[in-house]
């Protein structure tokens, strides 16, 4: 609240200053200073093309600035190394990178976890969230990889597996240190309320006969989350996955396509379906969780497993650091993230977003990721999408 008032006042102040410098000062310029300046200028510039001189001077200055900057940076990196073992405490502000623009799932997670850490005093230093969008995450990952600073962390989820497997990034989960997983979310397959199918088996029976009679729609592109969670379950059910028709709709129109019949099955996250199910617009045929979920409406959704299809898909979300992190730093972060995960505020937040608690420490996380990577890699291989 206060923040906005202050920001407003500041803006006015800034505009005011601009005019102040422009209008008032030109009449009240300190004569002495301008006179010396003029003398200097005349002296230096006498007789040559004015632009060339200005250019030269600037070139020299930028060079100077650059040299100073480089010198400073190398000094920095020297100071950073040379530690190891023992306790680790952050020496400067922690920076959490959300490898996406403002407002997405990564951004929300990073900002809320950062806020809880700061406000509940879990971490003493400041925590800043930095957006590095681009390449489905790849730009942010290469930023972390190149800065290689234990104070720079990032938030990630299954795209960290998918994007490298699809050949869109040279960096994969193995190039980073998993710190802690925080939450899990699950996929849901929804159809229009008046669709002929009532459960996954109905749907997959039809698809086994003619896979191309059904159009699946999701928000991600082929080879990524919404597509692959469907492929994974469908394969376990015995559908020919090479024949599945998948349409990607990234402008928020995926649900619309189900409602107006342009597509048949909506592959998405569980949370996105709840309100629509309550309103009787769509029905959920199955979810990809291991066990029944808790919560109003949510507990009505049958899992794929309960329907005899032995497959699950987890949309995990957690925090990572650069490769080869000091074990003491890893231990430090593990502990802090655990504290966040156990806090009441975070529990409340999980409820609001419909996320599940799924804390994993660094070691468990590493193993989990390897499993995921192998499993999804072979699926992509079969589709001919893997690289």
């Amino acid at each position, binding site marked *: 609240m206060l*923040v906005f008032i*202050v*920001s407003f006042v*500041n*803006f006015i*102040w*800034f505009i005011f*200053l*601009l005019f102040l*410098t*422009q209008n008032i*000062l*030109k009449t009240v*310029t*300190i004569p002495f*200073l*301008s006179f010396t*300046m003029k003398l200097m200028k005349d002296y230096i510039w006498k007789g040559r093309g004015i*632009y060339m001189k*200005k*250019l030269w001077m*600037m070139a020299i*200055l*930028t060079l100077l*600035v*650059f040299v*100073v*900057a*480089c010198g*400073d*940076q190398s000094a920095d990196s020297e100071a950073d190394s040379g530690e190891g073992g023992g306790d680790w405490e952050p020496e400067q502000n922690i*920076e959490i990178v959300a490898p996406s623009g403002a407002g997405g799932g990564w951004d929300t997670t990073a900002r809320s976890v950062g806020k809880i850490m700061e406000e509940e005093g879990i971490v003493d230093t400041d925590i*800043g*969230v*930095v957006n590095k969008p681009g390449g489905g995450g790849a730009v942010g990952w290469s930023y972390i990889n190149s800065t290689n600073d234990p104070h720079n962390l990032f938030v990630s989820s299954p795209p960290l597996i998918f994007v490298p497997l699809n050949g869109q990034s040279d960096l994969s989960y193995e190039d980073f240190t998993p710190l802690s997983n925080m939450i899990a979310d699950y996929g849901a397959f929804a159809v229009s309320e008046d669709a002929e199918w009532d459960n996954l088996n109905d749907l997959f029976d039809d698809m086994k006969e003619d896979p191309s009679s059904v159009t699946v729609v999701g928000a991600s592109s*082929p080879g990524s989350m919404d597509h692959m969670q469907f492929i994974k379950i469908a394969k376990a059910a015995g559908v020919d996955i*090479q024949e*599945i*028709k*998948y349409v990607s709709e990234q402008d928020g129109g995926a649900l619309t396509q189900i409602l107006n019949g342009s597509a048949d099955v909506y592959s998405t996250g569980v949370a996105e379906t709840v309100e629509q199910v309550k309103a009787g617009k769509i029905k959920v045929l199955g979810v990809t969780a291991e066990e029944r979920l808790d919560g109003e409406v949510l507990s009505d959704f049958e899992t794929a497993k309960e329907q005899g299809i032995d497959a699950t898909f987890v949309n995990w979300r957690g925090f990572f650091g650069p490769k080869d992190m000091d074990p003491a730093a890893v231990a430090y972060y593990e502990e802090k993230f655990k504290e966040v995960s156990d806090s009441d505020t975070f529990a409340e937040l999980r409820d609001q977003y419909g996320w599940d608690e799924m804390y994993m420490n660094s070691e468990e996380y590493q193993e989990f990721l390897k499993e995921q990577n192998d499993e999804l890699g072979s699926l992509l291989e079969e*589709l*001919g*999408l893997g690289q």
Partner: protein
Amino acid sequence: MLKTMNQKISVFLILFGIGYLYLSYNLKEYPYVPVDSDLVPKALGYLLVGLAVLLFFDKSSETEEQKKKRSVPKKELMVILAVGGMIFLYIFLFEIVGFLIATALFIFFCSWFLGYNRWVSNLLVSLIFPSVLYYLFNYLLQIRLPQGILPF
């Protein structure tokens, strides 16, 4: 042969179109959709080449006004290039020395270079403007601009 400006541009566009088409024909195939990702780029490539050919034979000459717009004195062109170079340097230094220093230097020198002679107000604007902007972004909007070599 290349007499009019249109013809020169047309040749450039045809070359560009051919390069684009070449890349389009080398796109990776994806077997599961009826219309693959190369269809639209190919169509656009041919369209561009076709339109460029039409432009080549376009008889309509430029109006006087358009010609006048294009006749930029050499010296002014140098100034534009220099400003372009400054922007380039600014971007280059942006994340290295940080927003504050880079912006202050840019505003000061760019304005000066373009003939802004009021030293004091130039100095003040180039110091105060970036500081206020930096404060606004980093602390109020929580959008981090690169801090660079400064400690804040």
